[in-house]
């Protein structure tokens, strides 16, 4: 009996070790240079990509766009089991390796600078609340764009015309047949599609997530907008496996290079990578592969819009990469009924204490279901709503560079210059860009020093009707430390004149600044 047991244990140990050692692993093999390669930008880039480079003063002969040295790639292919994606931006080829000897042999090659293991990571999933095809909240659908000032955009005939948007997701089933996208398909504004997993054009299968995010950028249903950029051009990239929870960041990177080559102005990525691959201290905008790719896309003049993440109620809590990138517009979620933070939307700041998310949008929306519409939750939908809005603003201000657009979107936030780590600067507002006769902002509260107390008193007769929403009774305030980093932040429902009262003697002991925002007016008080 003991012999049998010994055999079983040995067998299990053997299989487990064998499973680990023999399994093919993917590695990124980086080359030292691109010596001797030739590059013709006119042949490689779409005209829109060339125009974007000229506008952003990016060289058409940037070495990061040059192809890989195929002699180097050939040497690697001879050793590895198989090779896949070649990254021009980072000068590596992705290969399959199944044993240590292959790795050692690759390292011995003169052309190889370094080798990194590619790790599988998890897609950001959104919690979905599904309703029947027939039922959806029309008021919610109207408000999800109106919160940005959608009717003002419509009045000015801004629908993202002339702007090219790339959407990265886990698949786009029914997009070619669903009525929400007919206006895009019929007008040939779906300019490119690519499945980076199977290396083919068809992306109309896989995870529903892509259909739902796409609709929030430019979908249209029975005379009503689902998203704002109904006149934009689109590129769809399937970068996630879809039916599995695992994916690889290289696909995101490959899609970013593809989007750049084909002239995308904006990337919407409702994807994020968190605890399966990283720790919270890696969310510093420098560590993950995907954030490096996002930065490179921004360097090429593309506005990268990414969902902040749905992690607030999990132990992770914070944003997920690439939303941690400083040139990535991270979008948090707000509750459509309450108009402040929706419970699951990830909190900032980044691990290196930068403000995130940058802006917010609805985290509960109406979007395209398999046939009709449905309501869903997630910052996955806040991001595309914002990307659609950004396209309309870029149409209105074609001279904006991607980072002009980034900063102007922040400035147009309904809370700006106030911010916190749940809302960023709030929901971007069309009125900031389009309202010619802006009224001066009236003071809506004041700080009153009374003995040892500091009172924040609301001036209720002054009403800055900047945003006709239910947020007009919400007062936002935060506590900022001497280092400029927030320590805590709050939203208060105001119904009386004396809103806040602080003990100054207590506050003076640890110098702080209190920043307050109420009805379009922001101010601060230093203790």
């Amino acid at each position, binding site marked *: 009996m003991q012999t049998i047991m010994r055999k079983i244990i040995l067998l299990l140990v053997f299989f487990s070790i064998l499973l680990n050692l023999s399994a093919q692993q993917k590695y990124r093999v980086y080359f030292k240079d691109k010596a001797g390669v030739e590059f013709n930008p006119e042949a490689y880039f779409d005209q829109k990509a060339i125009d974007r480079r000229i506008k952003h003063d990016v060289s058409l002969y940037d070495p990061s766009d040059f192809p890989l040295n195929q002699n180097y790639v050939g040497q690697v292919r001879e050793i590895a089991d198989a090779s896949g994606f070649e990254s021009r931006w980072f000068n590596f080829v992705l290969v399959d390796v199944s044993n240590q000897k292959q790795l050692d042999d690759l390292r011995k090659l003169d052309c190889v600078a370094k080798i990194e293991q590619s790790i599988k990571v998890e897609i950001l999933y959104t919690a979905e609340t599904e309703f029947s095809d027939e039922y959806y909240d029309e008021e919610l659908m109207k408000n999800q764009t109106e919160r940005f000032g959608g009717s003002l955009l419509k009045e000015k005939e801004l629908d993202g015309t002339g702007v090219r948007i790339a959407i990265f997701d886990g698949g786009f089933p029914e997009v070619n047949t669903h009525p929400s996208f007919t206006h895009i398909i019929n007008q040939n504004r779906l300019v490119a599609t690519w499945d980076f997993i199977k290396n083919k054009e068809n992306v109309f299968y896989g995870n529903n997530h892509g259909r739902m995010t796409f609709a929030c950028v430019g979908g249209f249903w029975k005379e009503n907008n689902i998203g704002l950029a109904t006149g934009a051009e689109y590129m769809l990239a399937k970068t996630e496996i879809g039916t599995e929870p695992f994916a690889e960041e290289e696909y995101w990177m490959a899609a970013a290079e593809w989007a750049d080559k084909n002239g995308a102005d904006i990337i919407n990525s409702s994807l994020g990578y968190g*605890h399966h691959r990283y720790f919270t201290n890696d969310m510093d905008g420098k560590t993950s592969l995907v954030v490096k790719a996002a930065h490179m896309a921004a360097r090429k003049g593309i506005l990268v819009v990414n969902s902040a993440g749905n992690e607030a109620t999990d132990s992770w809590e914070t944003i997920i990469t690439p939303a941690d990138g400083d040139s990535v517009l991270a979008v948090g979620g707000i509750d459509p009924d309450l108009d402040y933070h929706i419970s699951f939307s990830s*909190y900032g700041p980044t691990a290196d204490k930068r403000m995130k998310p940058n802006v917010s949008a609805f985290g509960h929306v109406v979007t395209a279901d398999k046939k009709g519409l449905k309501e869903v939750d997630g910052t996955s939908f806040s991001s595309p709503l914002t990307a659609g809005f950004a396209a309309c603003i870029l149409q209105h201000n074609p001279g904006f560079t991607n980072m002009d657009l980034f900063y102007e979107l922040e400035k147009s936030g309904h809370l700006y210059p106030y911010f916190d780590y749940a809302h960023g600067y709030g929901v971007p507002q069309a009125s900031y860009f389009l309202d010619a006769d802006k009224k001066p902002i009236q003071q809506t509260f004041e700080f009153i020093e009374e003995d040892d107390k500091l009172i924040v008193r609301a001036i209720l007769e002054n009403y800055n009707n900047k945003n006709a929403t239910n947020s007009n009774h919400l007062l936002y305030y935060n506590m900022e430390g001497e280092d400029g980093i*927030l*320590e805590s*932040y709050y*939203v208060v429902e105001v119904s009386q004149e004396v809103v806040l009262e602080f003990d100054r003697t207590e506050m003076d002991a640890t110098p702080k600044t209190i920043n307050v925002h109420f009805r379009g007016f922001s101010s601060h008080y230093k203790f």
Partner: protein
Amino acid sequence: MQLPKRSMYILEDSALIINFKDKKMHKVLFISILLLTSFCLSAQDVVFENEVKDYSQLDENGPNLKKFSHTYVTYGLNLGENIAGAKIHYGSSGFYEFGFRHKRKFSKVFSGGYGVSGRFSSFKLVQEAGKILPDASINKKETLSFYSIGGELYFRINFSKKRGNLIGLYMDLGGRADYNYHMLLQRKNKVGSVTFKSNSYGYDFDIPYNFGPLFRFGYNQFALTANYRYSDFFKSSANLPELPRLMLGIEISTFD
């Protein structure tokens, strides 16, 4: 720092002219103040608050952090070599286990820890000539069950070196000891159309303590488990053949 005070309300420029001698006015005033106070108490609310965390500092607790604890449930089968006189039905002889496990991380690859659990294990005895356990009687159905609590010590080798805050792919090697606090013999017989069932316990031929090695091979919340019982169930003086010693199970841990 103080949070907003909710009971303060400054009444200024009141248009009310109050006659304090009028009893009706007293009532109106009292009700008005009551209503106003209750409104103020409930109206000005902090609807959202958040203390900022330093995400550059890692917690101590987590699946791939310094310490980690979780509960788990296992279902499995009693397997191993059937011995003459104590043969069991494979497939229907199984066990359930509910437990708590703690892990300490030593390095990216190595960790270890302990666990405590409760287990219910049953053996469906084959009814055939030559049966010895617990006696030679042949019944329609006969089940010998053990209720136990146990503890384990294990050493873990992790194969997913580059991973985030998750368990990853691992192999555990360790040992386990159990205390059988209850042994139950259940018999079912049928005479004509009448079914007889009996539950018997209090036997003195079992050894309450068992021990043996354990093995687990898992990925995140899921694991295949193997336990082997080195020690005997029954006292040598009882001259009873032993029940199969191997237990193979599927474990599901309860954590995100």
